[in-house]
C-alpha cells in the first residue's frame, strides 16, 4: 500500500509536468494540473492509511 501511495504521488507529479509540456493553452493546463494534484491527494491518503494500519498491527 505504501508503494502504491508513493507511485500515485509520482504519477500525479508527472501528470502536472506533462500538462505543462503538452498544452500551450492555459485553459487546458488548469484541469490537468488539478487532476495531477487530485491524484497526489489520493496518494497522500493511501500513504496515511497504510501507516495507520501498520500502527494498529504493531499494537
Amino acid at each position, binding site marked *: 500500500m505504501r508503494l502504491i501511495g508513493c507511485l500515485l504521488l509520482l504519477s500525479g507529479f508527472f501528470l502536472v509536468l506533462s500538462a505543462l509540456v503538452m498544452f500551450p493553452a492555459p485553459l487546458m493546463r*488548469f484541469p490537468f494540473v488539478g487532476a495531477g*494534484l487530485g491524484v497526489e491527494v489520493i496518494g497522500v491518503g493511501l500513504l*496515511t492509511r497504510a501507516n495507520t494500519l501498520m500502527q494498529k498491527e504493531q499494537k
Partner: protein
Amino acid sequence: MNLLLCLLCIMLIPLAAAGLALIHQGLGRSRSAAHAMLGALCALGIAAIVFAMIGFSWAGFAGGAAHSFAAGSVRWDWLGAGQFFPNGFGADAMDVASYRKSLTLCLEMFAAGLAATIPLSGGSDRWRLAPACIASAMLAGFLFPLFAHWVWAAGWLAQLGANFGISGFVDAGGAGVVQVVGGLMAVSVVWISGPRRGKFAADGMPAAIPGHNIVQVLFGCILALVGWIGLDSASSILFYGAGPEKVVWIVINAMLSASAGCLAALVVTRARYKKPDASISANGWIAGLVAGSAACAFVTPVAAVDTGIVAGVLVTYMIEIAELRLQADDPGGAVSVHAGAGLWGLIAVGLFGHFADGTRAGHLLAQFVGVAALLGFMLPLIYCANLLLNRVMPYRVDNDGDWQGMDVRELGAGAYPEFVVHADEFVPR
C-alpha cells in the same frame, strides 16, 4: 546598502530556530526537555556543516553552474553543480557578485538548520538523537538543496515563466523551501516512529498528553517572529530584489499574518471548547508566520491578515483531524503548522500576490505546479530516504526509553533534576 541590510536580516534567522526549539520542547514532556533542546542544537550544527560543505554546491545560486537536461524542447535545470567544500569566495568586498554568493550560502545555511529543527517536533519524546542527527545531515546535504535550487537558484520552478509562458514559482520567505520541506520530513518521522506509548487506546481514542511548559512555548513564538522577519526580509532582498522600502512592508506583513493566525486559532478554540487553547493559539501564530512568508514581499497588509486567518483556522482543524481521525501523534503539531500552513501560503501567493508581470491565472498555475512538486516528488523522496535510514538506524527509542523519557535514556540525566517526579509517570498505561 541592500546587501548590508540583507546580512543584518540573515543574522536574525537563528532566533527563528531558537523559537521553534523552545516551542517543541515546551509542547513535549518534561522528561524529554533537555533531549529536545540538544536535538535542536545538534540539528542546527550538523545542518550548517553539511550544507556549507556539500549542500550549497547542489543548491547553487542564480547564474551558477547547474545540472540540466532537455525534454519537451525545454531545458530542465534541476540541480546545482558548484564545487564542494567552498574556500571562501567573498574575500574581495568590492566584488558584488561574490558577496551575493557568500550571502546566499549564509542565508541557506541558516535556512537548512531551521528546516532541520522542524521534524524534531514530530518525533518528540521518541526519536533517538543519533538517527535525528543523520536525518538532519540528509536534509541539509541533499533534500533541502534540491528544492532550494529549483526555487531560489533559477531552477526549473523559477523558470516556469520563461519556459512555459506562465509565471515563475514564487516563494519569497521560504514557505515551501524551508517550511514545507521540513514539514514533509516531520510527516515521515511521525509515520515511521509511530505514536508515543499510551497516546492511543485500543479503540483508537487519543489521550491528552499536554505540553509541560506553555510559558516557554509562548516566549518561543515571540523569538520566532524576530527570526522570521529576518528570513522573510533577507530572502526577499537576495532572491527577489526587494529594496529597503519593501522590507518595511515585509516586517509589517509578518507581524500581521502571525497575529491573525494566533487570534483566529484563539477564537476557533474558544468557540469550540469554551476556553481558548494556549498551545493551539501558539501553533496558529507560527502557522500565520509560515503561510505569510511565501508572499511577504508581494501582498498588501489586508491580504497578509487574510492569509494568517485562514492559516490559523486551518491549523486548528488539521491538528484535530491528524490526532482523532488519522491517529498521527505529532506532539508539536509540526505537520499541520509547517506542511499544512506552508502549502496554503504558497497558494495564497497566487491568490493575493501583486506582481509587475504575468496574469493572476498564470501565477496561480505556477504555485499549483510548485505544490505538486512538493507533494508529488519531495514527499516520496523524503519518505523513502527516511525509511531507508530507519532500516540502518532505528528511529524509535526502545520500550524502556519510552517510559523513562529521552533525557534519562539518552543523556543520563533529566532537564529538571530538582523537580518531584510522580511515580505514575513511569507506570505503563
